[in-house]
């Protein structure tokens, strides 16, 4: 993985020192809360319902075991013993004391981490494919480009006060596991027709939130050396012309829509022509030296075994875990294993400090000391020997982390909701746990098969409800929490947004409603191979609506 040099290290330490001064000036009253707000936000510190929440950046979701141990230490010493992994591959703490924040930033800096630009109207953490570097369907590892973008965007002086927040995702694989179509900029490494050269394809203007929009391709292919200049051209057009009069219309998707993707692309191209040969142009040596950081680990060429054999193991719970949580790896003898953070003991995406330490130890033992946070709030061990999978599973079981539900209906994506968040209209964690309870029977979950269920406690869509096959959106109806049920969303290559099925449900009603929806699918599908999404797309919402809203 990327390793800081003296420059990166100096900058994160200087950032911590700068924030120490800002906190002191806030406490002395030299700056107002209104003026302090953007400063703390650009260090990931939000004021929530009960306390400050801190969002720590995990660039493209990649963590070393050492970093995870420090995150555990911070959870223990600065928070209440746990952390929450988010849909943007970051980690959040919920109970932070402002006065101790500068020390906390120093602790992060000591393991090459920070909270820079994890909030505020600036370029946020760059996200990517959790299987980057190990996926069987990858053209090229996207992480070197993600890291180049991370550095370019860090303290970019021109783009610190954009009209609104700005999210960039990049993938290098055939299958999109980074949800690039719902980002302000989605970048894909693609082969050019004809000579097959790998370049970059740029999508702009995707997003969820209040106005769900799929990104439009404004540049189907461009040489990789133009990564930074083309991105900068997009940001400059947005910074100049994005709306600033209305917070809800300030994202780049609104600008792209109002100009039209073609006109937007024309303006970007005009700007890019001017700067493409500037210092922003990447030299091939820079790309190559960045790639070297992401070189594969030293795989054991004698590692053997097949995943199919593991799936047939007589140890049925283990075989089920392999079936659900383990995927093929590009190197023979290795596999990609997911650790589900959708247990029934803790809220979605949460991990205790002790579990973090234990997972760090497992990463050292089983996955070359590295792990990845994915955008469905699970952890991924990218490099596990197939012949060690069963040992890993047994250890996970003892930690309460051996759950075999990845990709099933209980692998719920969920925002913190009204239990923590000052923007939320409704609780989401309680809904998630009620649904976990409802579908706790593994037989039932298996019968239903692959389905994504995403819950957001408000329209801002941190729980990505628009792109869940089943989406649940918390709303406030005359002071009572209600939940809209949405159907038909997808965050993958066939990205689409769910449609509201009908009138909203109360918190008590929602588990039954989802149960009926799922039963409708099981009854309507042509065979167990037809996925929920495909049945819905084939039939439309009418038969589902009829069954969900039927009177008993």
């Amino acid at each position, binding site marked *: 993985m990327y390793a800081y040099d003296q420059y990166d290290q100096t900058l994160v330490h200087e950032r911590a020192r700068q924030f120490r001064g800002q906190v002191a000036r806030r406490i002395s009253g030299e*700056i107002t809360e209104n003026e302090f707000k*953007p400063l703390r936000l650009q260090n990931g510190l939000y004021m929530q319902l009960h306390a400050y929440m801190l969002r720590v950046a995990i660039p493209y979701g990649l963590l070393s075991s050492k970093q995870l141990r420090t995150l555990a230490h911070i959870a223990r010493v600065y928070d209440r013993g746990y952390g929450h992994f988010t849909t943007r591959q970051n980690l959040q703490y919920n109970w932070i004391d402002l006065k101790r924040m500068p020390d906390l930033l120093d602790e992060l800096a000591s393991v090459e981490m920070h909270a820079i630009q994890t909030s505020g*109207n600036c370029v946020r953490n760059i996200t990517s494919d959790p299987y980057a570097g190990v996926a069987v369907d990858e053209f090229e590892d996207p992480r070197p480009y993600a890291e180049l973008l991370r550095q370019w965007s860090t303290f970019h*002086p*021109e783009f610190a*006060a*954009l009209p609104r927040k700005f999210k960039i995702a990049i993938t290098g694989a055939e299958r999109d596991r980074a949800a690039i179509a719902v980002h302000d900029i989605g970048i894909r490494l693609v082969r050019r027709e004809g000579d097959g050269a790998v370049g970059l394809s740029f999508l702009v203007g995707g997003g969820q939130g209040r106005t769900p929009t799929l990104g439009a391709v404004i540049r189907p292919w461009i040489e990789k050396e133009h990564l930074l200049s083309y991105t900068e051209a997009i940001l400059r057009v947005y*910074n*100049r012309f994005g709306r600033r009069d209305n917070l809800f219309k300030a994202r780049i998707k609104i600008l792209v829509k109002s100009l039209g993707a073609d006109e937007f692309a024309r303006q970007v191209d005009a700007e890019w022509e001017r700067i493409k040969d500037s210092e922003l142009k990447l030299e091939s040596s820079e790309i190559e030296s960045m790639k070297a950081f992401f070189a594969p680990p030293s795989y054991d060429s004698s590692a053997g075994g097949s995943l199919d054999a593991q799936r047939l193991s007589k140890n049925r719970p283990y075989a089920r875990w392999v079936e659900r949580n383990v995927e093929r790896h590009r190197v023979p003898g290795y596999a990609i294993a997911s650790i589900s953070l959708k247990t029934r003991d803790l809220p979605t995406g949460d991990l205790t400090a002790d579990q973090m330490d234990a997972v760090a130890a497992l990463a050292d033992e089983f996955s070359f000391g590295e792990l990845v946070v994915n955008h469905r709030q699970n952890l991924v061990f990218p490099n596990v020997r197939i012949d060690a999978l069963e040992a890993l599973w047994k250890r996970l079981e003892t930690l309460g982390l051996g759950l075999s539900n990845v990709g099933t209906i209980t692998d719920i994506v969920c925002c913190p909701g009204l239990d923590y968040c000052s923007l939320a209209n409704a609780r989401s964690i309680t809904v998630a746990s009620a649904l976990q309870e409802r579908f706790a029977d593994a037989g039932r979950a298996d019968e239903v098969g692959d389905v994504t269920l995403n819950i957001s406690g408000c329209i801002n869509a941190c729980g990505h409800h628009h792109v869940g096959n089943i989406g649940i959106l918390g709303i406030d109806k005359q002071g009572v929490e209600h939940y809209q049920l949405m159907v038909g969303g997808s965050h993958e290559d066939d990205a689409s947004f769910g449609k509201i099925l009908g009138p909203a449900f109360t918190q008590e009603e929602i588990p039954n409603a989802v149960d009926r929806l799922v039963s409708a699918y099981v009854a309507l599908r042509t065979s167990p191979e037809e996925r929920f999404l495909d049945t819905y797309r084939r039939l439309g919402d009418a038969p589902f609506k009829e069954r969900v809203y039927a009177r008993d």
Partner: protein
Amino acid sequence: MRVISERRIVDDAWISVEPGAALPAAGHGVVAFSDWLARKDTLRATNSPLGVRVHSDVDPAALAAEAPNFALIAIEFPTFKDGRGYSIARLLRDEHGYRGDLRAVGHVLRDQLLAMERVGFTSFELAPGKSLESAVEAFAEFSHAYEAIGAGITSVRALRRRA
């Protein structure tokens, strides 16, 4: 009034001129861009240096066409959240080659100064009540910059290429 110019606190020679009003007898006047466009022939007759003040929605190309007339361009930040001024500054410097004094005025705060300097601002009129002494310390908070944005900045990328 005191401002920050090239990282030092100085007494300012520039005086703001209301639209249509006479230029000051002593010191240098700063007129609104619309005022300049309305009476540039008259204003051009003055012997002393002239400054112009623009809003954050100004078209940099239109401003650049007039820029040879000005020794100072002051870009207004109506609130610190309005970041358009940063792009305008960069375009004036990098695309249009403006070399005069570029000043940030309006809701200008200590913690923005380094970024403003990097995109090309040379002087700063802080928001009312803000300490200039505290503000000048902000320029020294970071030793490096990832990208070569700003006069005399050697980017981290360039430092690494040389290594």
